[in-house]
Structure formats: structure tokens, C-alpha cells
């Protein structure tokens, strides 16, 4: 299985996969979003604003999954020294940060009519804000180190240490908000109180986001491999 992680093999098998991945994600997103936006009933409590769920939930999910993927890719790089692994982690970060921003923005838009404010220091929102900072730091470190292998090493360690602290932050933020307000009255447990009519298109939207993430990371990883190849060729020519 590891041979598919060789840069040349990776370029080979991803080229035909990419258009299918983008196509499939487009189909899923189109079905999920059109079904969700136009063919689901209006929620009796939240009105039509609830429909932002079809962007908010999948992007929030992928914001976290992207970080988990980066963590696994970082571990693989540190243990097995597969270059594609390090570059995939690097490639996933901007996609992850975009997902985080979408989740934060849609959360704010949804929060305005529901809570009467664009921003509340709700534990979930706060956790995503912290995750956003982690993404920024990770990307800034990649950008600051010139030697690609050193950059891969350092960002991998940052990703691992950051994961531990991100996990701690999640717990700390839950605790902290309880400490300030009595009870988390603002937090809605979104996934659990979704009725079936809303749930089915949501699955399509989530599927579409997953495949879109996969396709974007493949595309960006290919770009990173090409950049490394250009650098290697230039160094060889002196």
C-alpha cells in the first residue's frame, strides 16, 4: 500500500481520480443543497434560517476532520518519512482553514436571528476560533521554514503537540463557559435534534463536502509535489 505514496506513483494514480472526485462531489452537493434548500419543510421553531445547516454542519465536520487527517499524515511522515504524507498535510491546511471559516461564518449568520447576536462565546464557536488559530500557526510555520524536510519535521511536531492542546482547549472551553453563564443555554445540540426530513439531504451535503475535501487535498498535494520537483531539478542543474 505504501508504494502508492511514492511521489511518482501518486502523480500517476491521482490524475485519473481527480475529475471523478470533483464530479462526484458536485453531484452530491447539488442534490444535497437543492433538496435541502427548496424541498424541505420550514422548521416551526427556527423558520427558514435552519437551512444553513446544510453548509454549517458539513463544513464544521470537515474543519475537524481536516486537522485529524493532518495529524495522521504528520505521524506517518515522522515515522515512515513518506514525502507525499508531509505534503498532503501541508496541502490540507488551507482547505481546513477554509472549512473552519465557512463554519464560523455560517454559524454567525445562523446565530444572528436565533440568538440575537453574530457572536457568542459559546463553547463550540470558541473551540472553532481556537482551531482557526491553530491552522494559522501551522500554515505560518510551513511558510517560514525554507528547507522543505525541516519544515515538514517541525510542522509535524507542532501538529502533534497542537492536537493535544486543542483537545485540552475543547475541554477547558466547555468548563469555562459553564463557569461564566449558568448552563449552556445558547448551545443547540444540532446533530441530535435533526428530524429525518432534514437529515437525508444533510447526508448528501456531508458526502459532497467529504469528497470535495478529498479532491481539493489531492489537487493541492499534486501542486506541492510539482513544486518540490521543480526545486529538486533546479538544485540538480546547480
Amino acid at each position, binding site marked *: 500500500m505504501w508504494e502508492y505514496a511514492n511521489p511518482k506513483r501518486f502523480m500517476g494514480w491521482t490524475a485519473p481520480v481527480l475529475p471523478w472526485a470533483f464530479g462526484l462531489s458536485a453531484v452530491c452537493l447539488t442534490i444535497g443543497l437543492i433538496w435541502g434548500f427548496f424541498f424541505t419543510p420550514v422548521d416551526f421553531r427556527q423558520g427558514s434560517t435552519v437551512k444553513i445547516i446544510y453548509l454549517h454542519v458539513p463544513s464544521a465536520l470537515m474543519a475537524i476532520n481536516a486537522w485529524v487527517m493532518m495529524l495522521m499524515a504528520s505521524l506517518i511522515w515522522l515515522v515512515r518519512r513518506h514525502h507525499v504524507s508531509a505534503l498532503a498535510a501541508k496541502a490540507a491546511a488551507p482547505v481546513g482553514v477554509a472549512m473552519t471559516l465557512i463554519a464560523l461564518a455560517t454559524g454567525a449568520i445562523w446565530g444572528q436571528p436565533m440568538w440575537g447576536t453574530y457572536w457568542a462565546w459559546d463553547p463550540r464557536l470558541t473551540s472553532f476560533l481556537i482551531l482557526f488559530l491553530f491552522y494559522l500557526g501551522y500554515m505560518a510555520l510551513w511558510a517560514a521554514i525554507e528547507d522543505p*524536510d525541516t519544515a515538514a519535521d517541525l510542522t509535524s511536531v507542532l501538529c502533534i503537540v497542537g492536537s493535544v492542546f486543542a483537545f485540552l482547549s475543547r475541554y477547558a472551553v466547555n468548563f469555562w463557559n459553564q463557569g461564566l453563564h449558568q448552563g449552556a443555554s445558547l448551545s443547540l445540540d444540532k446533530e441530535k435534534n435533526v428530524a429525518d426530513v432534514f437529515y437525508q439531504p444533510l447526508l448528501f451535503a456531508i458526502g459532497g463536502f467529504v469528497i470535495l475535501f478529498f479532491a481539493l487535498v489531492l489537487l493541492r498535494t499534486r501542486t506541492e509535489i510539482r513544486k518540490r520537483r521543480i526545486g*529538486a531539478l533546479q538544485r540538480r542543474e546547480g
Partner: protein
Amino acid sequence: MLRVRDLAVARGGRTVLEGVSFDVNPGEALILRGANGIGKTTLLRTLAGLQDPVAGDITFPEDEGAYASHADAVKTALSVTENLTFWADIYGNPVPDMIWDAFDIADLRDRSAGTLSAGQKRRLGLARLGVIGRKVLFLDEPTVSLDGFSVRLFTNFIRTEHLAKGGVAVIATHIDLGLSAPTLELDTYAASDRPARSSSDEAFL
């Protein structure tokens, strides 16, 4: 005492030297020569264990190696004595008395290192080699910014205090130190243009 076999070293993902082999026996020195950018610093850093070799073996007695770069590693806020005492303490040695005359810094003992001239700082930096008590020295351009008198002091120190006591030294230098030591021309080991062996660039070529 120092044995190097078929060593290949890389800088910035590209192999610069390969097939480097030599032996240095106790009491001997080896002078490294080669054009700028050939990889003298990379080779010395690899020998000192600061970076991993791409291929090959380096053997010398454990805990006997020491490295000196072209930076002085002198703390300007400390006095000359404090600078030397720090290194002696780190290596768990006393500061030997001979060091003051060997590097002509006896008069500077209590001076703040920040008031020293470039050459005096360099001598203080080199005096570190005398307090750490290591047998295998890897020296990168040790005589930068030294005048002829100081170069002779340094050569004298290496000959009488280090080599004569069974130490070895690998020295990269452009000038003639006046040491009777064999020279290794690194130009002959320059890595060829074919894809670099197991350096990180290879995977992308």
C-alpha cells in the same frame, strides 16, 4: 582513532560529497581543502554528528568529538574567564593554566568579552578547545580573522597541547597552518550529477 568510510553528505536535500574515506591516527591531523561551496562545512557538521550522513560510516571513540564552527560562540556580556569557565563546567573539567598563555589571553582574563577585538574574540573562541578536553576535533576555518602571530599560536597549541597528547584534528582551512599533516582535496569527492543517493530530492526526480 577516526575512521571514515564511503561517506556521503547532503546539504539542502542535495548530496554534495560522496565516497569520502580516510583514517586519522592518534597524534595526526587532516587538512580539508576545496573550493567554496564544495561541502567542507557540511562534511565537518556530519562528522560532528550535527546532521545525519546520507551514506557511509564514521567511527571515533564515543564522547570524544568536538566541533568548532566559524562562529566564535563568545558571550559578550560575560568576562573572558566566565566564558571559558562555562565551557569547562559543561564538560566537567577545570580550566587548564596553560590556556592563558597558549592563546595569549592572560591579560584579558577579567575583561568583558564585549570589549575584545575580533581577533581576540576568535582566540577566546578557540581557547574553548583547550578546556573541553576532547580528543577528536572538527574545526571549520579556525583561523578566520587571526593575524600571523595568532595563527602560529593556534598551530602551536594544536601541535603541542592536542596532537602531542594523542588527539586528532580535522581542519578545514584556506591558509597554510604550518602543520605537517596530510591534505584531503575534496574536489575529487564532489557528487556527480546523477540523481542524488537517498537524499530527499531523489524521491522527486
